C-alpha cells in the first residue's frame, strides 16, 4: 500500500443556475478515485459555494495512482428527483509522483460537461504521500519522467540514450458497446473520456516499466496516439526514446566539466573518425524507400507493390562494417563495430528525437518511410493487442531494412501515424536513416565518460554561436577539438556526407563533393524528418514548403477498397515527392528538414499533405533552376507560352532567393584551387584514398552547377502542375514560417508568443470532381488558411510562425478538414538585419546561432535574454518587457556564474498558487521545447488530456464554427488551469494529437424535413448534432522565471 492520496474541495465559483425557481444552485461534490467515493456536504443556494471540506483520503497502490485519474463531479442536490450533474473535472495525478516535480496540485479547475462545456470552476487541493516500496516485482513505474519534447529537455543532461520504447493498449470503444444504445449521450461521452484517461495512464505505466528495464529514468520524445477504430476497438499507443537523464542541479555544476579539456582529450583515441565514408556514397534523394504492403488476411504475406525500392539490391549483412573495414583504419572499424553492436542489440534502433547533442549525428542518409493498408474487420481478436503489435512490428522491420539499404544503422526523428476510414486503416511510419555516434548509446561502463562528454558544450557554443558573426572555420576547429571528434571535415557539414556506398547506391542519385570540406561526397538534395542540427551551416532563412495532393478513388468495400488504396499510394508518394522537389528548387534551397507526410483516406479520395522546412545548406551544391521543356515544338504560340512560363519561374526563383536571403558564395572555383587547410595532420594521413579523387571534385562541381531540373510539359496536367507551383505565395513581408522548432537565420526572439489552432472544413462542390479540381481546391484551402493566419497575426510583425503543424482529415464525403497548430514568435527586426548582414558579408552563417536556443541542457542559460541584465537582478522580475537580446557573449557567459536563479524561480513558483485567488495566472503555451525570453526552471510533468464535446443545440451555439471555436477555447482553458494548479506558468511541446469533428445531420430526419417543405431547410440544420472529440496537448509543464 504505497500511497495515500489526499483531496480537499475548497470552493466553487460561477456555477450555473440549476434551479430555475430560485436562480440558484444547491451544489455538492463527489470525489472518486478507483472504486472509492467521498462526498462533500450540500452547500445550499449559492452560485459560489464554499465547501471547505475535510481532507478525503484514498489509500491506494502506486499502480493505481499511475493508471487512474482523480474524478471530481459537481452535482446539484435535488430533494425529490435525481441529482443533476453540473460537470466533472479529471485530474491526472501523475505529476505528483516524481520526486522533483510538483508537490501539490492546487487551484481553480473549470468544471466541464460534455454537453454544455465549461460550467463554472472549482477549487481543489490534491496531495500524495508516497511510501518507499522496494518491491522488485512491482508493476508500477512511478518516477519515470515523460517528456513530449523531441530533444533532451533543458535543465537535464542525457547520460545515456537507451533507445526505442513502444507500447499499445486496446479496449472496446464504449461508444460501440450495446449499452450505448440505452444510455444518455452524456454517460456515453463520460465513459469514453474516463476509459481513454485510464488507458493512457496504463500505457504510460507500461512504457515506464520498459524504461526501468532498460535502466533508464525518462522517456523523451514521447508520442501518444489514439486510433478510434470503431467497431473493432479503441487503441492507445505510444512510442518514445528511453534515456537516462541527469538533472542539472545548478549552473556551477557543469562549469568545471567544460573547463577540463584534459579529460576530453583522453577520449580522443576512442572516437577516431566517426566519418569513415571517404569513398562510399549514394545520394539521399529522399523519399526513396517505401513499400506498400497490403495484407487482408492475418498472415502477413506482403504483396509488395514497391515503387522504387528494391531491398534485394542492398547487401543485407554487415554492409556498414564491411565498407568501414575496407576504407577506414582500424579505429574506424572498431567504431563501426561498436556502433553496430550497440544498435543491433536493439530490435529497433529508432529514436523519436528530432534534435541531438552536437556530434551525435554522424551522417544522415535520408527519409525512410513505410506504409501499409490493413483491414480492421479482419482482426481475429479485436480486444487483444497482438494483431496491432504485429502490424507495427512489420512496419518497423521495414523501416529498419530501408535504413540499412541507405547504409545507416539507425533511424532518427521517427514517428508513426494512422489514418482510418471505415474498416480500412493506413499505418505509416517514417524517420530519417542516420549513422550515430556510439558514444551516446552505450550504457554500463561508458556512462562515466559520457558524463564528461556531454558537458562540454556551453563553453564552446555560448562563445561562438551567440555572436553569430564568428567566422565558422576557426570555430568549427574549436568544436572538433573540444568535441574530441577528430573529424577532417568541419562539424557543420559532416552530417550531410553520405553514409552509403557510392558504388552500391540504393537508388540513382547525383553526388558531388561536399561544398564545405571538399573531402566527402554529398547528395544534391537532402530530405530529413529531423530538426536542423545545431552545427549545420546555413545560408539565409528557411521557409515552410508544402506539397498538397488529392486523388479520387472509387468507393469500394473492404478488400477491394484496400487494394485500390494500396495501388494509389505509390503514385501519391511519388507526386508528393516531385512537388516537394520542385518547390524546393523554386526557392533556391537544397535541403528539407522536419518533413512530415500525411496521407489520409476518405470514402472517395485520398489526400496527401507534406510539410517541411526548406533551407540552403552550405555543404550541398547550389540547386539548379527549373527548366521547362515543351513536347510539341514547331508551334509559335506554344513556344512563346513556354518561354513565358520559363521566365516566370526564373523570376520566382530570383525573387525567392532575395526573400530568403540566399546568396551563396560565388567563388567555388578559387576555393577549389586552394583547399581548406586540414585542421590536423593526423587526419590527413588517414584519408589517403580521398585525395586521389580530388580531381573528380572539380568535375562534379561544375556539373552540379549547370544541372537544372527539367519539367516536361506534355499535357495539360503538367501545365497545371507548373501553374500550381507558381501559385504558392510567399509569406507577406515581415513573416517567416517553418515547421521545425526554430527558424534558421533568426536568432533574436523577443518574448511575445502566440500559440494558436485554426481549423477549416471545406465542402467540395459535388459536381463531377476531377483530380485536378480537387488538387486546386485543396491547394487553395491550405493557401488561404495560411494567408488568413498571416493576416490575423499581422500585429506581431516581424514574426515567425514556428512548428507549423498541418493535419488533414476527410471526415465525410466531399469534406476536407485542415487543422493547423503553430506558434508565432516575434523577433527583433533590427537585430535580424544586423546579423543577417554580417554573415552575408562573410557569405556564411551558422544555423547554430539560433539553434542553440533549443539545445538541451546547460545551454539555455546563455540563450536566456534575461541574461542581458545579469548584473541587475532586481530588474529581472520586470523583465518581460525588455527586448534587448543581442548581447555580447562575454556578458552572457557571466550570467552563468550567477548563483541563485533557480532559487528565485522556486520562490516565485511557491507564491503562485496562493495568488490565484486574485488573478488568473498567465500560462504561455507553445509547441516548441522552449519559450523565448524565459528559462525553464522545472518540468512539472506531462499533461495529457482528452475531451469530448457534444451538442444538441448547434444553432444556439453559433453553428459548427461557434461550437468548435468555443470548444477549442475551452480545451486551452483547461490545459492552462491544470498547469496553473501544478504551480506552472507555461506549457512546452504542446501537441493537439487528434481533432475529430463529427456533424451528424441525422440524415433521414433532415432529408425528410427538407423534402416535406422547402423553406424549413434551416430547421433541419437545427436538428443536427454537432459533435467533436479532441485529444489534446500533452505537453510538459514548466515553471518559467520571467
Amino acid at each position, binding site marked *: 500500500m504505497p500511497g495515500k492520496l489526499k483531496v480537499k474541495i475548497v470552493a466553487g465559483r*460561477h456555477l450555473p443556475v440549476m434551479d430555475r425557481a430560485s436562480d440558484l444552485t444547491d451544489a455538492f461534490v463527489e470525489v472518486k478515485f478507483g472504486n472509492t467515493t467521498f462526498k462533500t456536504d450540500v452547500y445550499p443556494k449559492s452560485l459560489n459555494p464554499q465547501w471547505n471540506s475535510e481532507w478525503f483520503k484514498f489509500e491506494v497502490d502506486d499502480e493505481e495512482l499511475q493508471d487512474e485519474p482523480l474524478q471530481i463531479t459537481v452535482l446539484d442536490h435535488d430533494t425529490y428527483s435525481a441529482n443533476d450533474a453540473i460537470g466533472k473535472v479529471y485530474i491526472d495525478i501523475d505529476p505528483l509522483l516524481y520526486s522533483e516535480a510538483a508537490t501539490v496540485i492546487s487551484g*481553480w479547475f*473549470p468544471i466541464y460537461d460534455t454537453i454544455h462545456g*465549461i460550467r463554472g*470552476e472549482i477549487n481543489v487541493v490534491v496531495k500524495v504521500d508516497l511510501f518507499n516500496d522496494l518491491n522488485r516485482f512491482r508493476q508500477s513505474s512511478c518516477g519515470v519522467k515523460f517528456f513530449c519534447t523531441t530533444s533532451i529537455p533543458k535543465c537535464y543532461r542525457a547520460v545515456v540514450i537507451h533507445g526505442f520504447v513502444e507500447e499499445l493498449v486496446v479496449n472496446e470503444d464504449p461508444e460501440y458497446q450495446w449499452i450505448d444504445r440505452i444510455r444518455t449521450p452524456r454517460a456515453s461521452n463520460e465513459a469514453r473520456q474516463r476509459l481513454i484517461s485510464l488507458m493512457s495512464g496504463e500505457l504510460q505505466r507500461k512504457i515506464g516499466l520498459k524504461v526501468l528495464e532498460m535502466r533508464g529514468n525518462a522517456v523523451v520524445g514521447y508520442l501518444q496516439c489514439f486510433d478510434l477504430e470503431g467497431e473493432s476497438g479503441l487503441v492507445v499507443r505510444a512510442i518514445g526514446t528511453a534515456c537516462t537523464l541527469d538533472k542539472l542541479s545548478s549552473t556551477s555544476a557543469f562549469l568545471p566539466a567544460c573547463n577540463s579539456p584534459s579529460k576530453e582529450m583522453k577520449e580522443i583515441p576512442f572516437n577516431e573518425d566517426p566519418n569513415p565514408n571517404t569513398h562510399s556514397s549514394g545520394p539521399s534523394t529522399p523519399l526513396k524507400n517505401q513499400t506498400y504492403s497490403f495484407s487482408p488476411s492475418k498472415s502477413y504475406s506482403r504483396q509488395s507493390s514497391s515503387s522504387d525500392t528494391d531491398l534485394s539490391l542492398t547487401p543485407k549483412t554487415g554492409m556498414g562494417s564491411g565498407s568501414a573495414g575496407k576504407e577506414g583504419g582500424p579505429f574506424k572499424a572498431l567504431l563501426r563495430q561498436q556502433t553496430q553492436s550497440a544498435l543491433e542489440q536493439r530490435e529497433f534502433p529508432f529514436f523519436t528525437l528530432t534534435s541531438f547533442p552536437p556530434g551525435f549525428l554522424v551522417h544522415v542518409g535520408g527519409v525512410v518511410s513505410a506504409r501499409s493498408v490493413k483491414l480492421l474487420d479482419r482482426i481475429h481478436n479485436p480486444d487483444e493487442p497482438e494483431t496491432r503489435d504485429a502490424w507495427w512490428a512489420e512496419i518497423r522491420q521495414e523501416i529498419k531494412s530501408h535504413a540499412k539499404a541507405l547504409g545507416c544503422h539507425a533511424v532518427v526523428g521517427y514517428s508513426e501515424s494512422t489514418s482510418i476510414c471505415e474498416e480500412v486503416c493506413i499505418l505509416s511510419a517514417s524517420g530519417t536513416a542516420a549513422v550515430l555516434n556510439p558514444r551516446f548509446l552505450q550504457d554500463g561502463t561508458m556512462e562515466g565518460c559520457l558524463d564528461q562528454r556531454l558537458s562540454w558544450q556551453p563553453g564552446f557554443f555560448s562563445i561562438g554561436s551567440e555572436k553569430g558573426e564568428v567566422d565558422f572555420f576557426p570555430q568549427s576547429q574549436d568544436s572538433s577539438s573540444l568535441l574530441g571528434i577528430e573529424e577532417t571535415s568541419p562539424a557543420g557539414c559532416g552530417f550531410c556526407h553520405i553514409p552509403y556506398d557510392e558504388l552500391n547506391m540504393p537508388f540513382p542519385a547525383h553526388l558531388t563533393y561536399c561544398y564545405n570540406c571538399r573531402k566527402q561526397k554529398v547528395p544534391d538534395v537532402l530530405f530529413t524528418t529531423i530538426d536542423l542540427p545545431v552545427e549545420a551551416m546555413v545560408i539565409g532563412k528557411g521557409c515552410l514548403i508544402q506539397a498538397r495532393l488529392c486523388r479520387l478513388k472509387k468507393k469500394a468495400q473492404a478488400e477491394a477498397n484496400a487494394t485500390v488504396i494500396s495501388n494509389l499510394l505509390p503514385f501519391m508518394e511519388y507526386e508528393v515527392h516531385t512537388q516537394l522537389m520542385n518547390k524546393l528548387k523554386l526557392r533556391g534551397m537544397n535541403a528539407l528538414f522536419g518533413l512530415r507526410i500525411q496521407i489520409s483516406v476518405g470514402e472517395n479520395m485520398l489526400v496527401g499533405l507534406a510539410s517541411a522546412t526548406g533551407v540552403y545548406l552550405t555543404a550541398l551544391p547550389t540547386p539548379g533552376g527549373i527548366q521547362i521543356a515543351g513536347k510539341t515544338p514547331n508551334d509559335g504560340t506554344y513556344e512563346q507560352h513556354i518561354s513565358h512560363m520559363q521566365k516566370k519561374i526564373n523570376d520566382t526563383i530570383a525573387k525567392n532567393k532575395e526573400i530568403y536571403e540566399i546568396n551563396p558564395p560565388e567563388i567555388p572555383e578559387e576555393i577549389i584551387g586552394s583547399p581548406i587547410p586540414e585542421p590536423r595532420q593526423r587526419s590527413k594521413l588517414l584519408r589517403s584514398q580521398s585525395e586521389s579523387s580530388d580531381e573528380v571534385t572539380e568535375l562534379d562541381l561544375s556539373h552540379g552547377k549547370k544541372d537544372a531540373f527539367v519539367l516536361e510539359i506534355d499535357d495539360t496536367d503538367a501545365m497545371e502542375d507548373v501553374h500550381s507551383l507558381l501559385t504558392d*505565395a510567399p*509569406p*507577406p*513581408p*515581415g*513573416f517567416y514560417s517553418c515547421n521545425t522548432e526554430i527558424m534558421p537565420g533568426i536568432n533574436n526572439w523577443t518574448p511575445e508568443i*502566440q*500559440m*494558436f*489552432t*485554426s*481549423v*477549416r*472544413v*471545406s*465542402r*467540395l*462542390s459535388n459536381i463531377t470532381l476531377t483530380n485536378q479540381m480537387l488538387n486546386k*481546391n485543396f491547394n*487553395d*484551402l491550405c493557401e*488561404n488558411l495560411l*494567408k*488568413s*493566419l*498571416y*493576416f*490575423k*497575426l*499581422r*500585429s506581431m*510583425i516581424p514574426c515567425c510562425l514556428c512548428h507549423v503543424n498541418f493535419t488533414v482529415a476527410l471526415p465525410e464525403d466531399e*469534406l476536407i*478538414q485542415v487543422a493547423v497548430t503553430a506558434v508565432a514568435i516575434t523577433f527583433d527586426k533590427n537585430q535580424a538585419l544586423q546579423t543577417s548582414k554580417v554573415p552575408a558579408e562573410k557569405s556564411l552563417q551558422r544555423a547554430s546561432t539560433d539553434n542553440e536556443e533549443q539545445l538541451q541542457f546547460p545551454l539555455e542559460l546563455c540563450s536566456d535574454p534575461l541574461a542581458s541584465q545579469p548584473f541587475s537582478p532586481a530588474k529581472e522580475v520586470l523583465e518581460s518587457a525588455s527586448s534587448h537580446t543581442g548581447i555580447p557573449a562575454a556578458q552572457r557567459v557571466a550570467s552563468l556564474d550567477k548563483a541563485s536563479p533557480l532559487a528565485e524561480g522556486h520562490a516565485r513558483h511557491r507564491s503562485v498558487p496562493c495568488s490565484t485567488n486574485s*488573478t*488568473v495566472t*498567465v*500560462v504561455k*503555451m507553445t509547441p516548441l521545447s522552449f519559450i523565448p525570453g524565459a528559462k525553464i526552471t522545472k518540468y512539472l510533468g506531462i499533461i495529457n488530456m482528452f475531451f469530448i464535446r457534444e451538442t444538441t443545440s448547434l444553432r444556439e451555439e*453559433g453553428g*459548427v*464554427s*461557434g461550437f*468548435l*471555436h*468555443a470548444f*477549442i*477555447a*475551452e480545451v*486551452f*482553458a*483547461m490545459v*492552462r*488551469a491544470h498547469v496553473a494548479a501544478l504551480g506552472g506558468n507555461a506549457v512546452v511541446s504542446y501537441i493537439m494529437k487528434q481533432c475529430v*469533428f463529427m456533424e451528424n445531420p441525422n440524415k433521414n430526419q433532415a432529408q425528410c424535413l427538407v423534402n416535406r417543405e422547402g423553406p424549413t431547410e434551416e430547421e433541419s440544420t437545427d436538428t443536427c448534432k454537432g459533435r467533436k472529440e479532441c485529444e489534446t496537448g500533452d505537453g510538459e509543464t514548466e515553471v518559467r522565471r520571467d
Partner: protein
Amino acid sequence: MTNDLDIFVGNTTLIDEEVYQLWLDGYSVSEAVSQRLRAGALEQPGAGPGAGPGAVLHSDTLDHYRTCHMLERLLHAPPKLAHQLLFQIPPERQAGLIQRYYAFDEPFVRELLGKKLSKGTKKDLDDVSAKTGITLKSCRRQFDNFKRVFKAVEELRGPLVDNIQQHFLLPDRLARDYAAIVFFANSRFETGKKKLQYLSFRDFAACAQHLIQHWTLGAVDSHVDDMDVDLDKEFLQELKELKVLVADKDLLDQHKSLVCTALRGKISVYNEMETNFKNLSRGLVNIACKLTHAKDLRDFFVDLVEKFIEPCKADRWPPSDMRLFLTQYTGSAHALDAFRHQALWDRYMNTVTACLLQMYHD
C-alpha cells in the same frame, strides 16, 4: 468550394480593436467587411499580395465577431472577466474591452436621459436609432448597459460612483457618466422638451453630478441605501421655507438693494438686472418651493430655463455677469437679518448656480 467551418483560436485571445468597434457599433459581418475594405485593411502589412478579394477579411471578421459574441456574456459582469479561465486576455486589454463595451454615444444617451429604462422605452429604440443614425443593435446594447448598471446599483449602499466602478470596473469619468444616467433615470427629469434641446448630455451630466453631491441623502449621511440616487426629501420639504424671500416684500427689496449696490458698475447688464431682479428672484425661489411635487421636480430643468436662462438670454447677459450676479445674489441673502435659513439657502443656491452656469450657453 465553400468553407463549412473556419475558426482561429489563440492561446492569448486576439481581438482586433477595429473589428471590436465595428461589432460594438452594431454592424453586420458583411457591413463590417465592406467598411474594413474601404478603410484599407488589406493594405496592411500582414495581408500580403493577392489576398482574395475580401475572403481573408470576411473570415477574420467572422472570427472576431464570434469571439466578441462569446465575450459579451462576460462583459455583462466585468469582474468575471478577470477571474474567468476561458479567455486569456492581458489585464490592460481587459480594461480596454470593458471600457469600450460600456462607452456610449452621447447623442443616443441624450435622447434617453430621464426616460424610464423600461421595456416600452426599449421598444421605441428604433425611432431613436433612426433619429441618431446609430444602428439599432448598438442602441440596444447601450440601453441594456444603462439598465444593467441601473439594476446593479439601485439598491446598494455607499457612493454611486464607487459602486459603479466596483461592479463594472469602469474608469472614473465613465463611472461618473453612468452615475448621471442612473440618477436621471431614477428621478425621471424632463429633458426632451424643445426648450431643452440645446443642452447636451455633458451639460446634464455635470448638473447631475452637482445634484448628487449636494441634494441627495448621501450628501448628509453616507450610510443609507440609495443614498446617491434619491434626492433628500426632507431637504426638498424644507425648501418651502425660502418662500419668505419673495413673499415678504421688505425682504425682497432689501435683497435687491444689497445685490444692486454690490454689482453697480461691475456688470454690463446692470440696468436689465435691476429691472428684472424681482422676476428672476421669484423664479428661482418658486422653483425651490415647488420641488416637493413630483411633477415640478421633473420639470426642474425646464423651469430653470424658462424662469431664469431665457430672460437672461433675452437681455444678452454675458456668462461672467451671470456668475457675478448669482454669487452676489446668494451671498447677499446672508446679510438679511430677517432671513434665518442660511444653510438651506446655500445648499440650494450653490447647486442651482452651478447648474445654471453649466446650462447657460447657446
